[in-house]
């Protein structure tokens, strides 16, 4: 009888590979959390009179701007991720109920839309509509197709997995298979697909604000400060928000990439 406590010499147990992307994901999350904390604490730094932002020193002003950028990005990312995941789930459901052709159409639309410069819609919406919640919705919509495409790919890969056949061979009804196997295995990949929205909405909002068509000035935004400083030719006012924005974008990308890489089975 085979015992596997001592593997045979011809089969060295390979060292457990570190989970791909975990380091990136963690460092991204740490940087983003630090940024969020610093931005939240910024009013304490700007000696009392935080309202007159132009007089404050550029670092404190940039940190104040970060509150608008980050909270808007978080809101739009949650919205966009939810929209995209819902899109993918709807496609899967339609494929089950109506037929594969409908599913292919629905997800084909997402693929085609992801190839469009949707980010251009955000400054347009900022200029033509002006309301913040409408802007958030449009920003979320720009990220949703990419999320939907990835989430649907993950979903259909999971639906083909052999262990679902094994579960059916164990006599589990479809509802049980869904509850015990599908949902626990879907959560991570769908979340990973959802995080894809974060860097996209942050970039889209900063782009729109850079052109002066994003968040209203009262909220403050890194993009708006960078754009203003660039127009005025003021490198001292330019550097802090630009650096913070670049850092936040890098962190958001690192989280999204790390989630996607860690989720992929080797």
């Amino acid at each position, binding site marked *: *009888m085979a015992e596997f406590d001592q593997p045979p010499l*011809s*089969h*060295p147990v390979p060292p457990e590979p570190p989970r791909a992307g975990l380091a990136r994901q963690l460092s991204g999350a740490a940087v983003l959390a630090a940024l969020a904390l610093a931005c939240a604490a910024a009013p304490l730094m700007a000696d009392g009179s935080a309202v007159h932002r132009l007089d404050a020193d550029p670092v404190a002003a940039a940190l104040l701007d970060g509150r608008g950028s980050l909270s808007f990005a978080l809101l739009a990312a949650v919205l966009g991720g939810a929209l995209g995941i819902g899109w993918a789930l709807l496609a899967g459901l339609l494929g089950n109920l109506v037929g594969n052709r409908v599913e292919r159409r629905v997800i084909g639309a997402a693929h085609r839309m992801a190839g469009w410069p949707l980010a251009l819609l955000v400054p347009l919406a900022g200029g033509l509509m002006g309301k913040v919640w409408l802007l958030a919705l449009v920003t979320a919509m720009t990220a949703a197709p990419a999320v939907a495409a990835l989430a649907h790919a993950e979903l259909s890969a999971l639906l083909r997995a052999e*262990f679902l056949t094994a579960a059916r*061979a*164990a006599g589990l009804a479809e509802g049980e298979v869904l509850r*015990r*196997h599908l949902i*626990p295995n879907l959560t991570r990949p769908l979340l990973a697909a959802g995080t894809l929205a974060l860097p996209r909405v942050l970039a889209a909002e900063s782009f729109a604000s850079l052109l002066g068509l994003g968040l209203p000035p009262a909220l403050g935004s890194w993009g708006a400060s960078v754009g203003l400083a660039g127009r005025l030719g003021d490198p001292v006012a330019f550097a802090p928000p630009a650096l913070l924005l670049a850092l936040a974008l890098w962190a958001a990308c690192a989280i999204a990439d790390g989630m996607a890489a860690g989720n992929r089975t080797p």
Partner: protein
Amino acid sequence: MNHISAKPAPVETEALTLMLGDRVLLDRASLRVERGEVLAFTGGAGSGKTALLAALAGQPPAGVDVAGGIRVDGHLLIAQGGRLAPRRPLALQVAEVVGHHLGLDLRLALRRTADGLDRMGVPAAARRFDLPPEQLPDSLRWACLFAMAVAVGPAVLLADAPAAGLDPTVRLRLLHRLADWARADGVALILAGRPEDGVAGPADHVLSLRRGRLLAPKPPRTAPLTPLEPPGASRLHARSVGMSYPLSPGPKGEARTLAVLHGIDLDLRTGETLALLGETGSAKATLARSLLCLPPPTAGAVVWMGRDLMAASAPPATGEDADNSGPDHVGLRRARRDLQPLFPDPAASFDPAMTIGAQFDLALESLRPDIAADRRDHRIDEALEEAGLRPEAALRWPAALTVAEAAHAGLARAILPEPRVLIADEPAASLSAEERETFLDTLMAVRDRRRLSLVLATDRYDEGLRDAHRGIVMLAGRVVESADAETLRTAPLHPYSRAMLAASRGERPALEGDAPSAFGQPTGCPLRRRCPLAREFCAQAVPALEEVAPGHHVACHYWDTPAEG
């Protein structure tokens, strides 16, 4: 031959030692391969075959230290996997290599390669030089690689896992042709591969690489582990089971289907082991899944102990809640408990998000509600031990299991609900060498202890029939021969069975060319383009299965006539 042996041999090593870190891959081996000699190394995964061949070629892999003397004349190494640049036309790559070694221009290089393809038996119609290798069938890619070697004509050819992954009949045909060339042209040919890859067949000498030593290979077990008991009454019946998949609609919007399984009849008796033998495209895996109704076949009937499984497993009408209290669901669940599958990729058949024990517990809860919850752990431990694992394996995650452990865990899950039939689809496909033998021995021991019926689908003819009562040879979704195992192992009648038998023994199979794809099946007999017995009539009718002796059925128009000139 004196004038040849007077020269030094093209391959000589003196106390060759290979170290990977502090692990000895090869310990002081002295080798000598003469011109025209064919030598095969066999060994399981990770035994150091690739490192040995690469060291002989003077390109040891990173991290491998080489000590001792090596002398190898002008050599060519065909690396593992047979990959070429995936996106360049094959013609350019072949011409590049031939031209590089012989200093020829493109046209002459291609002509030499064409001569090489003749020697590999590739018909002119199959030569599609302008495609990149990833768009060519694997068999043609390997034939081109061998033809390239033939065109270059090195003094020594080293081939690592040559033609691995091809069907046995195709692989052995190519390997024999390569060995013929080496003997005729006086090339020292060194093949390396897993023991079950059949590289030993065409070789003059075989050495097995085990624990750093080159030893004589262990002959595989040929007799059953314990004498087979006679089977009992027939319980599982399949009647004209057919499977077809929908294709995209045709140009006029008409529905199209691709039939992969054509009306198979099959009976399985208690305690009987039935081998389903066939290569790629034979639909043996589809048949195995159809017997389990996972998914149910599209035609025919599967009856287990008098209950029609297809009716039971039909999905409930839309809108109706899939509650499992209906009589059909009880019947299906009972059948699921009795019929358990073994999967070709055991590691993928476990949910990565649950421990092995949790999945076993779920399966027991579903299939054996009569076992109290506090007794389940005991049952799980028993099943794991019977399958050759330690009870602690229940606490591990599927990703932490080795391939062999996953295979044994798959077996443990299958025997957990105390089934009566195991339906195994290439259960050892992911295992090699000793691990493979260990797993199959465990499977047979479990079968004998529990008096299980076993359906074993495999493309290894000899190995599948070794422990079986009966065998069915399948080709392109049809049964071409069925008989008791002893008859199939000693005197098969169908040309395809004979070719599979020859390939499994390392001999030259009497079939030419490659298997046709599922979309391009010839009319009439699916084997006729490869068959040595084929005549004009074979194109006109699919041969029916006829009884040629009691219990021995063959589907061939000319099984009793010798091959034409």
